[in-house]
């Protein structure tokens, strides 16, 4: 009679054959889903907008959500729905440019300082100084200095955020620089430029990308706060923060002026945070993921 042998070795199987590995991460999926939802709804919303974002209609002011004004009207009769859609687009565009440019700037600064002690001292001191000033205050001060135009919001936020990216890049680059393979590259005769851009740069991408998603989320929040304080996007251009400011003034009578822009801000930032968390878990080499392989129970 054959003795029954228990299979004591764990059996690994790939749970879904052709699925890209990053879709396994729940946070990533949900974050991406929320973001996609926001982008698509804004796309759709802008196509369906029957009303002018600046068109005032005092007769219908402060009316609750109804058939022709899906999100109601504000205190001068403007259609809140179209304004919210525009505001979301504006915030996303500003967030995108701020993030992209400060990422590029931060990456450049972070990489360059690994190779020059002098530049390291100067540039990192500047970054430390900028970093020490609390973001909102620095943004307010910069907006006061540059003048209230949308382009200046982008410039101000870039100055606020690039130091944090530069720091992350620098600390990762410093670590990589000490590794043996860099030394061997130098022995083979590679010049500094080549080493920095072809070898160190790809290895700083992981923490950089995670930091970049945080910066995107933060830039949306800070832009909204700036506009809420009246120091950001100038009236009457609708930004999510401006809309909340208008909503605050009419909060007794018109909850829709506050709730709808607010919901969109939360969705965007939530989506970005989820995506960032998921990305961090996915890219973290220390986590116990099995890269798509799951133990058969």
């Amino acid at each position, binding site marked *: 009679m054959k003795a029954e042998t228990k299979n004591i070795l764990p059996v690994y199987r790939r749970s879904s054959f052709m699925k890209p590995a990053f879709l396994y991460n729940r946070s990533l999926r949900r974050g991406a889903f929320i973001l996609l939802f926001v982008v698509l709804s804004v796309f759709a919303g802008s196509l369906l907008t029957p009303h002018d974002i600046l068109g005032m209609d005092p007769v219908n002011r402060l009316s609750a959500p109804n058939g022709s004004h899906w999100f109601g009207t504000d205190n001068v009769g403007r259609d809140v729905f179209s304004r919210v859609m525009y505001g979301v687009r504006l915030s996303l565009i500003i967030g995108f440019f701020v993030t992209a440019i400060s990422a590029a700037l931060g990456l450049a600064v972070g990489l360059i300082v690994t190779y020059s002690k002098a530049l390291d001292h100067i540039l990192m*001191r*500047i970054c*430390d*100084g*900028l970093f*020490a*000033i*609390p*973001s*909102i*205050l*620095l943004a*307010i*001060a*910069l907006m*006061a*200095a*540059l*003048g209230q135009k949308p382009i200046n919001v982008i410039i101000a936020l870039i100055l606020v955020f690039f130091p944090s990216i530069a720091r992350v890049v620098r600390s990762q680059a410093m670590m990589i620089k000490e590794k043996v393979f860099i030394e061997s590259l130098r022995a083979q005769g590679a010049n500094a430029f080549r080493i920095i851009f072809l070898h160190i740069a790809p290895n700083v991408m992981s923490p950089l990308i995670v930091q970049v998603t945080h910066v995107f*989320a933060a830039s949306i*929040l800070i832009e*909204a*706060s700036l506009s*809420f*304080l*009246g*120091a950001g996007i100038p009236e009457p251009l609708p930004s999510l923060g401006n809309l*909340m400011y208008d*909503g*605050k003034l009419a*909060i*007794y009578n018109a*909850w829709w002026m*506050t*709730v709808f822009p*607010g919901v969109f*801000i*939360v969705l965007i*930032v*939530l989506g*970005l*945070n*989820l995506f960032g*968390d998921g990305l961090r878990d996915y890219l973290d080499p220390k986590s116990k993921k099995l890269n798509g392989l799951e133990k058969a129970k």
Partner: protein
Amino acid sequence: MGNYILKRLLSLIPVLAIVMFVVFIIIHITPGDPATIVLGEGASPEQIKDLRIKMGLDAPIYLQFVSWAGNLFQGDFGDSYFLGKPVLNAFLENLGPTVSLAILAQIIGVVLAIVFGIIAAKNKGKFKDETIIGVSLLGISIPSFLLGSLLILIFAVKIQLFPVSGYQPLSSGIWGHLKYLILPAITLGMIQAAIITRMTRSSLIDTLSENFIKTAKAKGLKQNSIILKHALRVSFLPVLTVIGESFGGLVTGAAVTEALFNIPGLGQLIISAVSRRDYAVIQGSILLITITYVLLNLLVDLLYAVIDPRVRNSYRS
């Protein structure tokens, strides 16, 4: 240990110098001449020129910086022409409400965070945990003015439990003082709680997987006892760091919440100064706030060294 403190204090100097520089540059590239703003459009050029000399604006830029910096070291942050008093005084007057708000908010945040962090870690993976993670994520995604607006809508407009906005100083009685601060403190406190809960939860989860916890379980200690008496103390270190760092952000970031609830704190001071081009106040307050922030971070680091013997001993050579 004293050596460590000294070295840290010294490293602050270049940072503060850069901050002074940055603040000065920012303010001075701002368009708009303060003298013209004060006197109004109808003023004659001589009047403007006289006022400029009186305000010290005629001197070359680097001399203005040097004299400003020099005054700084003597504790003179300049006088606000608009407010008619020294900047330092204006700052100290507006400091009270902001600090009250920040302390109240942080207490609420820490208490909520510890409670929910423990619940989340105990029920890791289950529904309670998932809910807490979800709500924390929501908490860090919501801007403070939105949460504040919603709380105002619910608690001050619909159910008229608390006042919508305004402030009463401590001297007018503790209950009145608290009444006006509760809604803003809950607003900020909930956001703080979200930040701290995430750290508490993850730190506690890491600690609970350590060997000494297994020993405690093997000895037969009840789970609550293990968590409260052993695991919590160990996992508290990173939580403390987060508490310290977020407190600095709280004091400074309360600006927006103060604007919403109409609290005469530092945030309002700076915002009104910016719209009036009150150079002295802007420079002085940003500088003072940054100094406070930097010193707070230093304090947290030192506290870390006091609490964790490992950090203390690594500086013992």
